[in-house]
Every structure is written in C-alpha cells, then in structure tokens.
C-alpha cells in the first residue's frame, strides 16, 4: 500500500540519521507532506534555467545591475 511505503520510507530515512519516529511524528510528517508535497514536486519539475544567477545576494538591497529607479 502507498501509505505503508510512505511510513516505511520516513522511518528508514530518519533511522539512518539515528532519529526515531513515533506515530504522532508520522502523522505530522504525513500532514506536512500532503499540504506542501505538491508544491515541492512542482518546484522540482520547474524550469528555472533562466533564473538570474545572484551570487552576491544581499537582502538589504535590490539585485546588482538593476539600478535604482
């Protein structure tokens, strides 16, 4: 069943990091994945090849090269 595979994947992946997962944890993780999973998958499929390369990102100012209006 898909549901069991999700639980198995969560437990085994976190077990490799030494992290235990109880039923409450699993429920929260499943809920978060249900809510944000589709958006995450859409991001993984998105074509971002034309996104600007901002190697000097400074959140206090606009991207360099855009000048000030």
């Amino acid at each position, binding site marked *: 069943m898909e549901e069991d595979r999700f639980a198995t994947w*969560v437990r085994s*992946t*976190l077990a490799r*990091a030494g*992290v235990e*997962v109880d039923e*409450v*944890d*699993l*429920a*929260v*993780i499943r809920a*978060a*994945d249900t*809510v*944000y999973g589709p*958006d*995450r998958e*859409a*991001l*993984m499929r*998105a074509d*971002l090849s034309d*996104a*600007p*390369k*901002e190697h000097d*990102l*400074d*959140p*206090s*100012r*606009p*991207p360099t090269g*855009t000048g*000030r*209006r």
Partner: protein
Amino acid sequence: MTATEPNSSRGDHPQDLSLCEQARAIAAGELDATELLEATLARIEERDGELNSIVDTFASDSARMLNEAPDGPLHGVPVAIKDMFALPWRAPRDGSTRNVTGVEAGASSVYNRLRDAGAVVVGVANMHEHGAGSTGHISAYGPCGNPWDTTRCGGGSSGGSAAAVGARLVAGAVGTDGGGSIRYPAAYCGVTGLKLTWGLVPGEGYTHSYSTMSATGPICRDAADARLLGEALIGRPLERQRAQRLRLGIVRELWEDVDPEVGDLCQAAVDALRDAGMTVTEIEFDGLDHVRIATVLRLTLEDAAAVPPEEARAHEPELSPIGRGLAKFRMLIPAEVLVRADAVRARLRLSLAEACREADVLVWPTVPAPAPAIENTTVQLPSGVVPADYANVRMGGIANLTGAPALSAPAGLTRAGLPAGLHLITHWRDNERLLDVADLLEQVTDRRHVDATPPLAQTHPAQTEFSA
C-alpha cells in the same frame, strides 16, 4: 467574547492614546510616565487573561528603565517586545519552553535602540513557537487570542505584539517577520505592522539573527505610530512625504482565491487611494508560481545549523507535537529543493526591482481570509478549506525572499467583525513610502479602520485615575 458593533471613537484615556500622543503628552508634562507605566501593567493584568498576548512583565526592571530613560522621542512610553530579543534581565525563549538559541540575557540591539529613544520595555509578547507559524496558536505560553474575538488566532508569529496593541494594552510593540510574521498578525488584529528592509535593525541579541529572511519592525495602531517606533528601531528619521503623487501597482494574481469580503474591503481601500489622487495600475509580476514553497523551504531550513545538536536533541521532547514532527519532516527535504528555492528567490528579486520601475508601491491583501479559530486553524477560500499557514505565505513570502520592506494597514472589518489588512510593498530603500500610503489611507477613510476598537478594549474600561 465575539465582536459586536465596533466603537470607532478614539479613547481619551492616557492608556488609549496613540504612541505619538503618549510621547507628546509626557514630553509636555501633561502625562506622568510613572503613572502610565503602572497603569499599563495594571491594564495588562486586568485585560490580558483571555488574550494571553503578554507573557512576562517585570515591574522593577521597567521602572529602572524609566528612571534611567534619556530624553528621546519615546521618553517614558511603554512598549512590548516579542520573545525573540534579549533584555539585560531576561534571555528570550523564542515562544518555547526554554532558550535553545544560545542568545543569553543582555542588551540586544532592539533593547538598546528603545532605551536610547527613552522608551520603557513593559512586557514580553507571546509568539508562535520558534516563529514557525502564522497563527500563534502553538506556544509554550499557550495560544495568543485575537482582541476582536478571543476564540480566534492573534496571528503569528508576532501574535502577542499585534494583539497587545489591538487590545490597547500598549500603543506600540516590536515584532519580527521571517515569512509574514509582523504582517499576518497585524492584519488579523486590525493594526499596522511594518516589516522593515532586511538588515536595517542590527541582529545582536535576536534569536533568529542567522536568518536572511527575517527582519524586525514596529506594530502599532496607525502609520504615524509605526513611523515613530520604526525611527527608534533604525536610529534615523523616516521622512514623511505626500503619497498622492505615488503610483500604486495592483498585482492581480495575488488578489485571486481570496475571501470575497476581504477582497472587497481591500479593493475599497485601493479605490479610496485612487480617489485621493494616487495613480493605480495593474502590474505584471513574474515568478509568483513558487513563492509559497520557496518561502517555506528557506524558512524551514535556514536554522538547521543555528542550534547546537546536543541542544536540539535535548529540546526535542519539549517541543509541541507539531514542532517535533516538523523538525523531523525537515530532515527529509532533499537539498536540491533549497537550491531551486533560491533560484526562485533570485527571480522574485529581479521581478520586484523591475516592478518598482512601473509602480512606487505594490498592493494586495495581506491575508486571504480573516483570523481562523484557535481550535481549527483552517480558512475558507474560494478554492476550498486550507490551513491558514498554507494560505498566508503565498501573500507574505515575497517580502522576505526579496528582503524588501512591506506593511499591513487596516482595511476594515468583515460582517463578522474581523479585520482585514491591505499589504503594501516597495523598493528596498523606500520604507517611508509604505507609511506615507498607509497614512493617506487613514486620512481618506477618516481613520475609521485604525480607530475601530475591539470589544476586548471596550468592556474593561481602565479605572486608573491620572494626576495630570
């Protein structure tokens, strides 16, 4: 307690005065700062029980701060600060059971700025646990309610700050905003909240100083108060200019899938600004498709290295069940998505810079629906029922990903008596313009939105007699 017919008259009791009016009256000798401090503490005690906005007060420390207060622009004025800033007498706890961030008691930058302005820190405001929510219903201190309906969320993560101002416990409070956390509670509580440009307020003594998304800012009743408190926080003037000549840009995509009443209230606000002389146009804004997930990913992962592993492990059993589960969920996120989120971020920053050539201020609703119930933090949108966090971050995340300043201004009440907020965002260097537009909105609506008083502030009139 639920909303009844709102009282739009401005109270003339000293505790109901605005931040500006309190500062003026104290400076003029018309109001005794010691009496105001004592009355504020008494009002918190009297009024905050069902609201739970202020989680700690320290009368002797506040009195000492007042006694030592210099003659600054906020001399003697009581303000609250979010549980993310160190005070000389108190380490922040980030809305959690204990301090795991390593920020110890001391003079944070925010404390120093307030002190230098002569203000008095009267209390620590409630917040969503570790800043990880837009509702404020998960906190080691218990949920923070909404002054318009205490069964509803005060918002997050700076819910306590907004609720305390909304309930007239204090005239000003300091919040932080990493994914909308000043603006969402401001909208929910019917007050004005300004996320300043990233980096304008130094991060010493701030639990999330590692963040490239989080910024500090004022939460007050109106634009003039937010300007005054904002000036104290950044240590320089926020010059006032006429907003009528500015261009307002509607980003139509962010008006979609919004509660119809909220949409109508925000549109009415825009129409009022147009009637006041602002030029209003529709603006194209590229890159909105992945705002929500990019914001959540950046916020979720940025603190991964901020807490020592042994502290994180020791703290885990003390987290809320949701907090604990989300901490483990984070470990399942592949690294590639963060790289992609940062590409989205770069695209949004360029889009905002380009949009700021076509309009001086961009506008959309702050939150797509009014404050949800504490017991059920979902909201009803035209597309269906969704968690409030999921709904909100689409609207608020742009300002955090870009670093630009953004503000939520009160836009009126729904038929159920719940506030709606109008979201304004502008160029990185133009914090003042947001305040100018908010100020103009107040003028053209006869201040009825900012002066509306929630039931909580009406049913417990202050008893303190002032000598001045």
